[in-house]
């Protein structure tokens, strides 16, 4: 309409674009291309997660010491309530129950905070999404990575607690690494699913704390599922034990705690742990990518 006269007069916009090899701005790349772009941004993803982590406590006087102090205080509160007041340590001695509880709290918090950060990954960073170009999956991945680093600080506390209650380092501690890797995959997938849903419906940020708390109490963070549900139909315990949060907690306890043997684990536990991780990570990634070009709409 208001174009200048040119030899291309009469061509429609689409034909003109095709003639000079112009591409639609903001179109969603193919899945392979998307993965490649994401890999190209790996340094940004890592730097962003570390920056978020550092910024968290930069105003506090004790600074980064809070990375360790926060989980320690958390564990202390749960011990006070469930260990001393409620006596939820049925079927376990104190030397098993306390590391059992602390492991449960930390491992579950890892998933919980990844989900919560995931919900706000896009909706809480609209400024960034509207100003710069990058594969949007960088954000949920970066937030899960931040939570992983946070968990590594918590692991220091966890090791101290384990040793203090008589579980000394042994070969099975090596299993911590695959457990963490699988749980990280699972969390990242979940964060991506939540990120897409949260981008469309920011209200999820208000709703999720209740969902997560229900999930926490159902996953046996502070009690042993088979012992608590004795006498109830067996399928309830089965369902609860096979939920991913319970699986990763149990595996971590099995790896870490001396008196928590394989009799506490459901059958095929590693296959289930791996299955959840791969299913949710791949499914979440594809689900997130499908809406790539729509993130950032007001």
């Amino acid at each position, binding site marked *: 309409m208001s174009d200048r006269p040119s*030899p291309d007069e009469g061509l429609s916009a689409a034909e003109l674009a095709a003639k*000079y*090899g*112009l591409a639609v701005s903001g179109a969603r790349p193919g899945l392979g291309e998307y993965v490649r772009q994401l890999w190209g941004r790996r340094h940004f993803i890592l730097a*962003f997660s570390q920056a*978020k982590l550092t910024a968290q406590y930069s105003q506090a006087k004790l600074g980064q010491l809070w990375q360790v102090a926060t989980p320690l205080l958390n564990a202390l509160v749960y011990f006070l309530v469930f260990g001393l007041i409620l006596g939820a340590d049925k079927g376990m001695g104190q030397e098993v129950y306390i590391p059992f509880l602390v492991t449960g709290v930390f491992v579950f918090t890892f998933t919980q905070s990844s989900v919560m950060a995931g919900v706000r990954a896009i909706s809480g960073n609209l400024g960034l999404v509207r100003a*710069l170009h*990058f594969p949007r999956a960088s954000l949920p991945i970066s937030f899960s990575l931040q939570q992983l680093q946070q968990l590594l600080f918590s692991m220091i506390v966890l090791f101290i607690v384990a040793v203090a209650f008589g579980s000394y380092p042994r070969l099975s501690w090596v299993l911590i690494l695959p457990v963490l890797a699988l749980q990280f995959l699972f969390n990242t997938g979940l964060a991506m699913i939540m990120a897409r849903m949260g981008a469309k419906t920011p209200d999820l940020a208000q709703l999720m704390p209740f969902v997560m708390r229900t999930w926490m109490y159902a996953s046996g963070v502070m009690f042993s599922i088979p012992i608590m549900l004795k006498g109830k139909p067996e399928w309830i315990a089965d369902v609860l034990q096979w939920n991913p949060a319970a699986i990763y907690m149990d595996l971590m306890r099995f790896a870490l705690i001396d008196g928590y043997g394989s009799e506490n684990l459901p059958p095929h536990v590693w296959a289930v742990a791996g299955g959840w991780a791969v299913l949710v990570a791949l499914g979440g990634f594809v689900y997130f990518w499908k809406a790539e070009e729509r993130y*950032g709409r*007001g």
Partner: protein
Amino acid sequence: MAEALIPTVIADELHIVYRVNGAKTGKGSATAALSRIIKRGEERGVRKVHAVRGVSFTSYRGEAIGLIGSNGSGKSTLLRAIAGLLPAEKGKVYTDGQPSLLGVNAALMNDLTGERNVILGGLAMGMSREQIRERYQEIVDFSGINEKGDFITLPMRTYSSGMAARLRFSIAAAKDHDVLMIDEALATGDRKFQKRSEARIRELRKEAGTVFLVSHNNKSIRDTCDRVLWLERGELRMDGPTEDVLKEYEKFTGK
């Protein structure tokens, strides 16, 4: 000369609509919100803002295009749509390469040191670690942050607003672009820094295929642009050589 016209950005009947949650006209009370949820249907409780309405234009390599219009006329929205950052409601934008917005503010964190923000901002714009290492000193020198002492190792929240703005501009301007879009970036810093940034913009223009500049300062539009798009209420009101459009615009604004 006609053969030399190579298009870099084509906008074709572009419409952009913002959706704002919870800004529906009328009652904002909890009961009103509840009844909206119950009545469901066509996206209730969501107010639509039609920010850009059917804009079409083609820009060519080597052009510097100014965008003018009163506040809220859709200039920034249009830039974001060209950059592919805001999805189009209707119509399409075709671009050559990846247009980039000169704006890195959103990636920076006030609680981090200037040093870390330079690295983070560079990575966010898609620079590699090596590129950032190469340009790091350049960025810091250009910002002039260290002229009054070692400020780059302090958190950005300790900077004065002028210092922070200078660092942001320096980071944003450190990258080379195909199609570059500048949104009111020239108004930051003191007189000395403004001169320096104008020079940097001219440099960027030479490297970039096409430059878009949003500004309310008609003088800086005259200095840098050869073509101007005038937006009013989301519609393209005029498109032509700088002088012609500015004359009409100045008549319109009553200068």
